Structures are given as structure tokens and as C-alpha cells.
């Protein structure tokens, strides 16, 4: 096996020509031969270059319509690039989505065999690996059930089990981790790790930043067909959230700042885990500490410290203030530096949270001395997503009569 990069994309551009009228007919062409066939040009990829080394788990992120799926389809050889070259070293898995080619009217048994052949296995190889596939999907009892009677979770498990059986050196995957229960997601994660240890290269397209931060070695942010940034997945996830919330306008990682911050200013804010280490990501259920560092330029009595956590949708999820909690903050001289810590159990739902700390003078209705929006980010990851904004520890009792 050669040691060069697995995927080399050089200056690739792709433009779609979208006719204004989608379906034309021969009749129209015959009756109106001179009517201009107007097309809208959509530049889906603009001069994209990227090199992905062998064995890397690479994420491609971007908003809807950013061109990330187009890039994946060009990589897969489904679309033809207009300019530039794409070279893939090694065998490429042919699917970009799970369950492609599944037929709902056939049984799981038939579908697995057909799908394995679509993937490039021979009939014999497909039969040999059949048991392994079914065991991985944990569907031994449902082999002869037609696929239309499968739940969506079972469907995905089966699809994932077959897809990872392909003897591909390079796997291209478009949005997969959204479905399946927590235990199966864990299994998928382990399967990814196994594939990676075996030297496979995986390219994942998603807008799930949790998946990017959890799985990827490196990621790329794409916007309007252009590569904005390539690098560490945490930085990419953060940059993605920024463009998603429109903060890229002032091109600063920090949000807006209010107050004149002459009397006192917030110099830093961060999150800590139970051991006091600074973290940008934390598992759900772990103790969490939110820290704010303030430097005083004037002497102040009983200043008020506050903070708000907002989730990806911009909703305030958690908020607290020293005055509401009846905490006495004391007196500070000019030049003093203090750190406030708020401790709580992290029962936030998986999402990325932005911390907005503030300080104000004592007294009702006073203006903020300093308020810094989105000064720190925390990604909370968990094994399941309830859909709520926080997941309180709870018990469920069933009282049958």
C-alpha cells in the first residue's frame, strides 16, 4: 500500500445549471423553439482543495446549501466536477448514505445479500459475512420480516451493519449518527474506531457538531462552496456555530460587549470539570463549574455578578445572579482580581452552550459595568437526546391496576 494521501482534491469547482422551469416537454420545445431556456447558475463548489491523509477521520461541516454534500458526491464519483481534479487512492465505498438500495418489500435476509453485492462483495462473500452482519445489527430474530415492518432504528442498524462490511479503504458518509438508540450509537462509534485502526479513511458530512467533536481528527468548514477553515474539530465546531448565529460579521470569536468596563471588567470566563481542569466539552451528568474572572479598576462595594447560558437555538437555559441568590460579594479595591465560580450538576441536554457573564453595580436597575456575550463555549455531550433543553435525573414508576 502506498503512503500517499488517501484523498487529494485540487481546485475543484462545480456549477449547477438549474433551468427556471424544472420539467420541460418536447411539446414546449416544438411549439416555442425560440423561447430562451433560462437557467440559474448555482456555484456549489468554488476552488476547493483539501488533502486527507490515510487513516484520518475527517469531518465536513457547513450549513444547508453550503456545498458539503456536493463535495461528497464529487468525491464519490456521483457528480462530475467542472474543474479541478479529485484523486482517491484505494477502494472507495460506493454508498454515501445508509440503506440505499434497500427494498421495503423484501425481507431483511434478501436485502442484506443484495446490499452486500451493491457494495461490491461477491455472492459468496456476501453469504459468508451474512451471520456477522446480522449479529452486528442484533436482528437475528427478525431475519424473515419484510423491511417495511422494521422500525426506523432497526432499519438503520441493518444498513450500518452492511455498510461497514464493505472492504473499502475510504468510506464516505452523509449524516448517519442521528438515528439509532444510545447503545447502538456507541457501537457505531466503536466500529468507526475499529475501521480507523485498520487504516481506513472516513469522511463524514454532518451538521451535528457533537459528532464532529467526538469522532473527527480534523474537520473542514465550508460555506457557499468555499473552504472557510480546516483544522481541529473543536475550532471548526465553534466556527460553524459562529456562522450559524451570524457572528462572523465582526469576525471575532467573541460576541458583543456592553457597558463601559471602566470601573471593572470581565477578563475571562471558562468552564471547569470536577477536577478543576478547564474544559470545552463535558459529558452530561458530570459536575460542572462555571468560572468568571474580574479585574477592578475602581473600588466597588457589593458588585453583582451574573451569568447566562444559552443553547444553540439562542434560548436562555440557565441564569443566575449573586443578588438573587442573596450572596454577599464584599468590597474590592482598585486593581483587585477575583474569580467567581458557580457549581452545578450538568444536566443540560446535549448541545453547545454559550456563556454570557456580566457585572453590575449594587442597586436595583443599575446598568451593567461589563457584559460580554458568548465569552466561553461548552459542548455537552450525552448518549441520547431527549429533545428537551435539560435532562433532570429522574425515576419512572409504573403503577398497574
Amino acid at each position, binding site marked *: 500500500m502506498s503512503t500517499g494521501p488517501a484523498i487529494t482534491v485540487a481546485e475543484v469547482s462545480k456549477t449547477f445549471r438549474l433551468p427556471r422551469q424544472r420539467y420541460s416537454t418536447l*411539446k414546449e420545445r416544438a411549439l416555442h423553439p425560440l423561447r430562451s431556456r433560462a437557467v440559474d447558475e448555482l456555484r456549489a463548489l468554488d476552488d476547493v482543495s483539501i488533502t486527507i491523509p490515510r487513516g484520518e477521520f475527517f469531518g465536513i461541516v457547513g450549513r444547508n446549501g453550503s456545498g458539503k454534500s456536493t463535495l461528497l*458526491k464529487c468525491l*464519490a464519483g*456521483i457528480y462530475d466536477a467542472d474543474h479541478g481534479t479529485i484523486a482517491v487512492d484505494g477502494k472507495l465505498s*460506493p454508498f454515501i*448514505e445508509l440503506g*440505499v438500495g434497500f427494498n421495503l*418489500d423484501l425481507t431483511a435476509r*434478501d436485502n442484506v445479500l*443484495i446490499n452486500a453485492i451493491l457494495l461490491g462483495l461477491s455472492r459468496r462473500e456476501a453469504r459468508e459475512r451474512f451471520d456477522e452482519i446480522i449479529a452486528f445489527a442484533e436482528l437475528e430474530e427478525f431475519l424473515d420480516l419484510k423491511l417495511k415492518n422494521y422500525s426506523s432504528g432497526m432499519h438503520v442498524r441493518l444498513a450500518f451493519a452492511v455498510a461497514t462490511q464493505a472492504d473499502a479503504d475510504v468510506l464516505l458518509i452523509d449524516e448517519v449518527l442521528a438515528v439509532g438508540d444510545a447503545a447502538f450509537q456507541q457501537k457505531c462509534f466503536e466500529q468507526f474506531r475499529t475501521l480507523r485502526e485498520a487504516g481506513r479513511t472516513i469522511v463524514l458530512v454532518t451538521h451535528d457538531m457533537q459528532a464532529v467533536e467526538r469522532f473527527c481528527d480534523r474537520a473542514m468548514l465550508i460555506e457557499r462552496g468555499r473552504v472557510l477553515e480546516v483544522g481541529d474539530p473543536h475550532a471548526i465546531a465553534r466556527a460553524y456555530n459562529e456562522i450559524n448565529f451570524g457572528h462572523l460579521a465582526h469576525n471575532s470569536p467573541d460576541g458583543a460587549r456592553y457597558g463601559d468596563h471602566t470601573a471593572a471588567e470581565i477578563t475571562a470566563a471558562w468552564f471547569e470539570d470536577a477536577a478543576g481542569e478547564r474544559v470545552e466539552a463535558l459529558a452530561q451528568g458530570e459536575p460542572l463549574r462555571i468560572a468568571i474572572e474580574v479585574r477592578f479598576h475602581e473600588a466597588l462595594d457589593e458588585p453583582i455578578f451574573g451569568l447566562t447560558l444559552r443553547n444553540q437555538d439562542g434560548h436562555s437555559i440557565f441564569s443566575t445572579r449573586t443578588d438573587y441568590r442573596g450572596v454577599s460579594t464584599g468590597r474590592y479595591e482598585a486593581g483587585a482580581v477575583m474569580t467567581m465560580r458557580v457549581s452545578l450538576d450538568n444536566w443540560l441536554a446535549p448541545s453547545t452552550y454559550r456563556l454570557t457573564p456580566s457585572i453590575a453595580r449594587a442597586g436595583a436597575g443599575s446598568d451593567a459595568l461589563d457584559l460580554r456575550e458568548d465569552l466561553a463555549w461548552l459542548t455537552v455531550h450525552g448518549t441520547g437526546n431527549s429533545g428537551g433543553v435539560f435532562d433532570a435525573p429522574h425515576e419512572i414508576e409504573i403503577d398497574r391496576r
Partner: protein
Amino acid sequence: MSRQGPQLIGDDARRFWALTWTLALTDWKLRFYGSALGYVWTLARPFAFFGVIYVVFTEIAKIGDDIPNYGVYVLFSMVVFQFFGEATGSAVTSLVARENLLRKMRFPRLVIPLSTVLTAMMNLGMTLIAVFLFAIGSGVYPDWGWLELIPLIGLVAVLATGTGMLLAPLYIRYRDVQPVWDVATQILFYASPILYVATMVPEDYQKAYMFNPLASVLTQLRHAVVDPAAPTAATVIGGGAWLLIPLAITAFVFLLGSWYFTREAPRIAENL
């Protein structure tokens, strides 16, 4: 290191064939799935139509009286034409029907129209079993001439594949290709010797009539399979050399289809 781009045939003949076969077989199996009488139903259409035609043309219009084994001939020619009609008809919509595969999977594009022709061929094989039984029951016994069925059906398959390759990408652009082709198939049905035989065509037109590849194929089929006393296609067209014209038309349709499909293949997924 391979350069990426949509493939027409691909670089792996084994995979190309495995895909074509698997897709064709799946489609074919689905017809029989969920109905115990699956095979009977596939026979119902040609045989019911045949029954009507037979009664009309032997009892009412009395065309069939002078033709030996008229019933067997009508059944054979109808089944062969139905193969052509089914292969081209399903090839037209094949790319659109397989949109999900085409947009989400990398595989040689030509597999799609080819597999529809192959499915139609499997159906033909199943129907022919019943037709053979009918022929034997009617006193037409197999001989070496029946082997000519293989190249004859092969020619129809080449014509159907060429037509399919031409129409399938065209249908993505122009949705009225399908109704147009339906009408064309109807015309072709009456322009081919199915309900009647080629020798009944007025002599002045006979040569031109036989330029229709299906007319030549069915006329030869009549000689080889149904009635050895009937003239061969070469006799009807007026000399073996003239047969090069229907053959050339078949080859032309196939090459035109291949050329157009090859040209359109890289953009099929994005135009869907």
C-alpha cells in the same frame, strides 16, 4: 490512484455484471412476491390478449384460416413483441425510478437500463415455457430450427437496449417522452407481423415493410419455429443481402443509444 467521476461501465467487468444481474433479479422477484399465483399472473396478460385476438381473427375476421398454425404464430410473435415493449417501456423510466440509487451510490450508470432489459428477458423466458407447451399441444413440435430463437431474440434485445439507452436519459429532460413512446409502441405493434403475417402485405410495399427489424425477426421466426414451409425473411425481403438493412437499422439504434447515453451519463445524477 484513480480520478473520480461518474462511470459509464466502470473498470470492473465482474462488478458490472453482478450489479446488473442483482438489480434485474430483484425486480423480477418482486413481481412474484406476495402473490402465490405470481407466475400465473405474468402469463395472464399475453394469454388473455391472445385469446381475444385468436377468436377475433379466426372466427370473425377469418384472417387466420389460410395460415397454418396461426394461433401458435400469433402467440410467439406477441410474446416476442411484448418483450420488446416491456423492455423499452420500463427502460424509459428506469433512470428516474432508480433516482435514489443514482444520487446516493457510485456505480456504472449503464447498469440501470441494461438491468431492465434483463428483467424483461427473464419474464420472456418464463412466458416462453408456457408458449412452448401451447405449441406442442397444438401440434408444432420442437426441432433444430427452434434454436434460431436465440439469435432472433438476441437481435430484439439489442434493438430494445439501444432504444432504452436513447430514451432513458431523454426522459429525464422531457417528460412527454413516455406518452410519445407509448404511441410509437402501438404503431410498431401494427406495423409488425403479429396479428397477420408478412406475406399478406401487398408486394409493392413488402421490401420496405421488412426494413422494420421486428418484421424481419418475426418473419424468420415463423419459418424457423412455427411453419418450415413459410418463406424465410430473406425470401420475403427479396434476397439475403437486403437483410443488411434491418440489421443496419438495429446496429444504428444501438450505436445512437450508446452514444447518447455515454454523453449524458456524467450528468444523469444531477439532472434527476
